[in-house]
């Protein structure tokens, strides 16, 4: 029996399909979900999400969020998520550079801003890693 995977961000539903297996990056390491998995609720870390359907594997970049496995439904709430095809390498690189630059320059910005920039850098890094995997 196939799994149903749903990835939702505040701005849109990024992914919704039936799949064979998915590997989710969590704060405790990667978790592979196959049909018949026991119910699970876990925290998603910044990282690469791997979806396998038939003999095709698709990569997604996700940033922090939550994943829930219940029956044959896998739901992922993430702050950001993007499929590999949609990643614009140049734009991401530029964004990453900007964020890193700001991190270097600003020593005493408020911690929230700092955290935001850091998460931006991490998410950009993940996106690049996903995009470049092919080559």
């Amino acid at each position, binding site marked *: 029996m196939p799994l149903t995977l749903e990835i939702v961000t505040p701005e849109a539903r990024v992914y919704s399909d039936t799949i064979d297996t998915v590997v989710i990056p969590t704060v405790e390491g990667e978790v592979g979900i196959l049909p018949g998995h026991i*119910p699970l*609720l*876990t925290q998603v870390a910044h990282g690469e999400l791997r979806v396998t359907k038939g003999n095709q594997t698709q990569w997604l970049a996700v940033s922090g969020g939550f994943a829930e496995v*219940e029956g044959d439904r896998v*739901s992922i709430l993430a702050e950001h998520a993007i499929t590999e095809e949609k990643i614009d390498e140049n734009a991401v690189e530029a964004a990453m550079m900007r964020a890193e630059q700001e991190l270097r320059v600003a020593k005493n910005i408020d911690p929230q801003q700092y955290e935001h920039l850091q998460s931006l850098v991490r998410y950009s890094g993940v996106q690049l890693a996903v995009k470049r995997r092919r080559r």
Partner: protein
Amino acid sequence: MASTREIRRRIKSVKNTRQITKAMELVAASKMKKAQQLALAGRPYSQLMARMLAALADRVEESQHPFLVERPVKTRGILLVTTDKGLAGPLNANLFKLVMDIKTPAKYYVIGRKGSQFIARTKRDMVADFQVTDRAAFSEVKVAAEFMVKQYLEGVIDTIEVIYPRFTNTLVQEPTLRPVLPLGSLKDFVSQTSATAGGDARVAADTREILFEPSAAQVLEALLPFYVNRHLYQLVLSAKASEHSARMVAMKTAKDNATKLLGDLTLEYNKARQAAITQEILEIAAAQFAA
């Protein structure tokens, strides 16, 4: 009766007004569509969030998480969500009425320039104001949300409440005061969320024990702030949709009024013109008669 020249001048100015209001109506209409779409796009997320909380609620005994514990309220924290620009009908004024009703000590956090002007004018305690563009990205709202949560945890404020125009439909926006924190006991809260999120938020039929990673308490610890951010974001989206709807309706009314006025003025102008012509003919006739 006013001279034809004066009437012509009025007609011209009313025409200009109509043109401007018409343009603004169109702009507001397109922004409204986008804002409404955004508000709708957030819905699956809210539903999923509610379902996860529901799954948690059954398995975590009443915890001591600061978001859940009610403490004596000394200072309320109120987030006022208004527009940056005016010309949105009674939208902001209605919100301000709600603010005026608050007599207990409170600190104010504001989104939108109109709101910060109002709070400053009425000499209320404004802690911070935030800018949110029409695009209303999550990151913009998150800054405000996290700031408030921090103050809440530090004990500067004892509640987080939001005053915003709740979007019902294009014609109706209700000024609403919505408490966000503390959440009250988890279970009541979840059933309430499920109801407002609309749709299927019950814990699913799968009764096998849920595995939490790293642990139920830790997941809760992370999920709750996340939920608060998300909730505030949804409220801001709703406010944006209200803003553009209100503006569109206000501008449509203004345009219709201008059109009506234009009709009246044109009628008056034609009458005046006709009167002048009649007068002239009479004079010529009288002159001939006398000759």
